[in-house]
C-alpha cells in the first residue's frame, strides 16, 4: 500500500471541489444523511472500530478521501483522519477485505486517448428471449469501447455508454455489436455535446 508517486495537484484540487459540492448537498439533505449526523471526527477517533458490516464515521472519511485520491500515502491518509498510521492501514485493509472498496484505479484523460466522443445508445430487442439476451450481453463484454451496459425497465431494453474516437468508430462499434445480432430491433444514438458532470464517486 505504499505510494512512490508525488501527490497529484489536480486530484487534490478536484477533491477540494468535490468536498464543497458534497457539503452543499449534505446541508440540503438532512434525512438521507442522518447516519452521519452529529459525527464528530475527534470523538469518532476514540470510538472502537466498527463492528462487522457497519461503517463508522472514520470509515466514511477514509472512503471519501480515497475516492478523491486513490494513491494517497498511508501516512498522509492517517494525518487527514487523525488516526495512527497502523490503525489507518488496518481500516483500509478491512474495507478492501469486506468488499467496500472494490479496487483502485487511475483516472485517464479520454480526450488524449482516442476516446473523446461520448455516445449513449438505447437498444431495443425484437423480443426478450434468453438466447438473444445472452448473445447481446456477450457481445457487449467483448468491446472495450462499451464502458457501461444496463438492462433497464422502461421504453427500451439496454442503455449503452460508449467512448470512441469519432463517429466512424461508433458506427463500426454498433455494426459489430448490434446490427450483426438477429434479435436487435433498433438502436437510437445520442451523442454527448457537453459533459456537465461526470464522476464515479459515490455519495459517501
Amino acid at each position, binding site marked *: 500500500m505504499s505510494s512512490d508517486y508525488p501527490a497529484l495537484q489536480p486530484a487534490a484540487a478536484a477533491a477540494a471541489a468535490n468536498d464543497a459540492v458534497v457539503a452543499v448537498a449534505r446541508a440540503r439533505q438532512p434525512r438521507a444523511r442522518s447516519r452521519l449526523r452529529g459525527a464528530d471526527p475527534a470523538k469518532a477517533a476514540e470510538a472502537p472500530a466498527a463492528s462487522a458490516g457497519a461503517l463508522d464515521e472514520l470509515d466514511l472519511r477514509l472512503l471519501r478521501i480515497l475516492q478523491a485520491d486513490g494513491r494517497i500515502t498511508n501516512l498522509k491518509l492517517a494525518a487527514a483522519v487523525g488516526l495512527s498510521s497502523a490503525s489507518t492501514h488496518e481500516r483500509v485493509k478491512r474495507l478492501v477485505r469486506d468488499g467496500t472498496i472494490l479496487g483502485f484505479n487511475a483516472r485517464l484523460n479520454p480526450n488524449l486517448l482516442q476516446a473523446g466522443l461520448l455516445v449513449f445508445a438505447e437498444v431495443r430487442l425484437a423480443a426478450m428471449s434468453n438466447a438473444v439476451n445472452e448473445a447481446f450481453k456477450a457481445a457487449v463484454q467483448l468491446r472495450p469501447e462499451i464502458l457501461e451496459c444496463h438492462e433497464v425497465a422502461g421504453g427500451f431494453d439496454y442503455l449503452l455508454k460508449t467512448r470512441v474516437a469519432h463517429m466512424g468508430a461508433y458506427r463500426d462499434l454498433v455494426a459489430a455489436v448490434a446490427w450483426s445480432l438477429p434479435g436487435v430491433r433498433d438502436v437510437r444514438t445520442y451523442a*454527448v455535446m457537453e459533459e456537465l458532470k461526470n464522476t464515479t464517486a459515490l455519495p459517501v
Partner: protein
Amino acid sequence: MNKTQPEPSSVSNLSNDKGIDKIDARILRVLQRDGRISNLKLAEEVHLSPTAVLERVKRLTRENFILGYEARLNPNKLGASMMVFIEVLLDRTAPDIMDTFKAAVQTRPEILECHLVAGGFDYLIKTRVADMAAYREMIASVIWSLPGVRETRTYTVMEEVKTTNALPI
C-alpha cells in the same frame, strides 16, 4: 474488478496516434486496473527499471494522460445500490435555463453524470440512490423544481450488465 482486455492489435495501431508508445500504453493499462500498485511492481510488469517507470508515470501525469487516482467503492454497501437514468426534456434550450440546470445538478452527489445530448431529449442523467423513495425525493427537489423542464423519463436499471470506467487503450 473490471478488467478490460483490449485486443493486442488495437494497441499497436492506436498507440502512435495518441502520442504515447507501447510501454506508456501498458503502464496506463496497469494503472487503470491497479491504481495503488507500487512503482517496483509496475516496473516488473512492464519490464523497465523502476527509475524509468517513475519518470514515465511522472510525464504521463504532467501531460494530463493521468488525471488522478480513485478508490472504486461498492454501491451496495453504501446505500447507493439502485441505479436510475433520467431523460430530461426542456421547453426550449435557452442559455439561462441551461445555466440553471447545470448548476442544479452539481449540488447533489447522487447525480453522478449529466450530459447534454443531441437527439430526442436534452439531458441524460445518471443517478445512484438507495431506493425509489430517495429517487423520488431527489428528482422532485432537483429537477422538477427547475424552470423550463417539460418532461422527465425515468429508467430504472434492472441489471448492470457491464460497468467500468477503464478506457480502451
